[in-house]
């Protein structure tokens, strides 16, 4: 059976490859997305003091260490059975919003916008952030500036841009200074301007990507995200909720270890990434999506004025939930707008400079679960400790795991739509990669996969001989 292998998939975070199997007529039969690296954090943390977990787990990822830091600290709060001071919670929320801003800016501007600006079929040598700098310098500058804003907030609060500290079990390690608050507030209007401009531009582009909208993992599925009483957008506080494609609630009020009853994890023979599924429906029918699209489908309103306007317009796209994964990009921009606006509100709150930012306690429970909405979706950290506070076992479900089944679905859908015949073209394979990029998967959770890695795609005949080959 002829097979096309895309290895590695570029402009994503981490290492992966895609296999596309064709029949003798050159029609796509099957397509699979494989993650080709293993990290092993669940194992290597065993026996370590639970207080070390936030810093250790943050090392999972260089793009979103803050998300792991937060989810891990929340799990530790749970082990200590403390309610952290209100100021600390607000400060943690600002960190999370800054993290969402910088990560989304990276995904949209650095990784995906070369496809929108230069075209899916453009020469791969040009179709990257450097090509974008040459042809659309203002857009590139804006993207870099927006990500820089998010990173600067993380640096001001957490001490470092990559792998900040500050967030600790029980709260944060020290209070916010007025000067830091003012410095962040001063940069917010520019961040809002850039995001609005990008939104305006992207909305105008959607018309040119009709085929991609139709085929990029566009299928009815459930969505999982954090929910709360107000039905406003929530990324830090709340419980988990599953909704179906018609926005009906499937399961609600999932907190703590309840997730084990609803989320199943299945191992794959051909990938180091497990596939998670909605347990009551089983692996075959339990597909759901997480991330920006899921969150916007989940909430009734964002809770900030400009993001609410954009959200209303976003809702017009479809009657029920927005189903095409191409719109993840659109949702990401709306989330940046919300994050920046929400940061502004939180920073204007006089309580934000409060001095009581940490609760101290020894372990009071043997188990703790921390749930957070990370940029790419729902993040779960679950730890079990012994009587001395050392980790006995850890389970982590990361956004990309939740999306794995949907990504595979999308890869197959796009391959069927765009790969025809026995002649390979860069554009069609780029679309297969682009559907993966739409989910912004974080595979290694590290920073070393830029767009310049070698790509070798081979189209093999039924007897294994090479029909066509593309190298870059």
């Amino acid at each position, binding site marked *: 059976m002829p097979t096309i292998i895309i290895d590695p998939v570029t402009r994503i975070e981490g290492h992966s490859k895609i296999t596309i199997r064709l029949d003798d007529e050159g029609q796509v039969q099957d397509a699979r997305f494989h993650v080709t690296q293993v990290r092993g954090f669940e194992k290597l943390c065993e*026996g370590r003091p639970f207080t*070390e977990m936030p*810093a250790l787990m943050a*090392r999972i990822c260089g793009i979103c260490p803050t998300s792991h830091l937060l989810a891990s600290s929340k799990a530790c709060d749970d082990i200590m059975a403390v309610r952290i001071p209100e100021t600390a919670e607000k400060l943690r929320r600002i960190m999370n919003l800054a993290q969402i801003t910088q990560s989304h800016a990276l995904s949209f501007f650095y990784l995906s916008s070369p496809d929108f600006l230069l075209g899916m079929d453009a020469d791969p040598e040009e179709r990257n952030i450097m090509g974008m700098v040459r042809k659309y310098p203002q857009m590139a500058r804006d993207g870099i500036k927006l990500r820089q804003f998010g990173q600067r907030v993380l640096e001001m609060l957490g001490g470092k841009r990559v792998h900040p500290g500050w967030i*600790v079990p029980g709260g944060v390690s020290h209070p916010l200074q007025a000067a830091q608050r003012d410095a962040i507030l001063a940069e917010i209007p520019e961040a809002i301007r850039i995001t609005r401009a990008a939104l305006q531009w992207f909305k105008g582009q959607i018309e040119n990507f009709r085929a991609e909208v139709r085929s990029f993992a566009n299928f009815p599925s459930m969505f999982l995200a954090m929910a709360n009483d107000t039905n406003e957008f929530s990324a830090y506080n709340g419980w988990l909720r599953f909704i179906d494609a018609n926005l009906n609630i499937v399961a609600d009020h999932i907190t703590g270890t309840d997730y084990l009853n609803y989320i199943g994890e299945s191992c794959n023979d051909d990938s180091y990434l497990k596939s998670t599924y909605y347990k009551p429906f089983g692996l075959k029918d339990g597909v759901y999506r997480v991330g920006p699209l899921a969150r916007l489908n989940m909430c009734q309103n964002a809770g900030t004025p400009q993001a609410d306007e954009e959200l209303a317009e976003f809702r017009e796209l479809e009657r029920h939930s927005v189903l095409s994964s191409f719109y993840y990009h659109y949702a990401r921009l709306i989330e940046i707008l919300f994050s920046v606006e929400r940061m502004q509100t939180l920073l204007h709150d006089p309580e934000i400079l409060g001095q009581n930012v940490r609760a101290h306690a020894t372990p009071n429970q043997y188990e703790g679960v921390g749930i957070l909405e990370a940029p790419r979706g729902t993040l779960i950290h679950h730890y079990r400790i012994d009587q001395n*506070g*050392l980790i006995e076992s850890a389970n982590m479900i990361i956004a990309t795991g939740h999306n794995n089944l949907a990504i595979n679905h999308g890869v197959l859908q796009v391959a069927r739509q765009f790969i025809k015949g026995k002649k390979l073209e860069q554009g069609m394979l780029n679309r297969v990669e682009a559907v993966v990029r739409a989910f912004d998967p974080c595979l290694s959770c590290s920073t070393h996969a830029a767009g310049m890695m070698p790509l070798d795609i081979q189209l093999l005949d039924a007897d294994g001989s090479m029909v066509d080959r593309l190298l870059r």
Partner: protein
Amino acid sequence: MNKPGVEICTLIIENRECGGRSDQTILEVAEEYGIFIPTLCRLSGLSNIGACRMCLVEVKGSNKLMPACVTKVQEGMEVTVNSPKLAEYRKTVLELLFSERNHICSVCVTNGHCDLQALAQKLGVNHIPMPYIHPHLMVDASHPRFLADHNRCILCTRCVRVCSEVEGAHTWDLMGRGTTVKVITDLKRPWGESESCTGCGKCVQVCPTGALSEKGQAAGEMLKRRQFLPYLSMMREVGR
């Protein structure tokens, strides 16, 4: 000064003429003259054992390197503190320490306040050329207030000395041989079950790395407070 048999000697350290008493070590005299010699296992107020070999110096007329913390000064000695050979030796000693157990700074409770880390930065250790051993060692969290992470121990024995010499409990000691040596409490009982430990925490404060720490501290939060040591040492001298 008035101890019997103690003489005044003149010697040269790093091309400087220095004066010291014959019961002083090269390190003590060098410090009086503001000449820096790196140290790790040594802590002022505790006995010197010359274990870490960081303070090695060259003494003219001897083909062996001498640990400055335990080598007494002599009349006419010529001591070299900084030379390419010494720099290489000291760096290698640190590299060997880093390669032996797990000293990943980023997640350590003493990150930013660690003697080993500070010395490595000062002496320019930026890569470890030898393979890591990374043995899988236990963390003893049985004590209600303190943690012993043997993965981060460099076997300097500061804990053993402070417990024996200052606190007088001698809870800590060494067990085993070679690279498998471990510091133990009582006769290798879990720290929390030790009968001799008074829970004073001096060992935690003098520990140069994150091997001994207070519970509940997140990465980089364990500051070592050693202010008590000069005072207690002085009182001990007075009492003698």
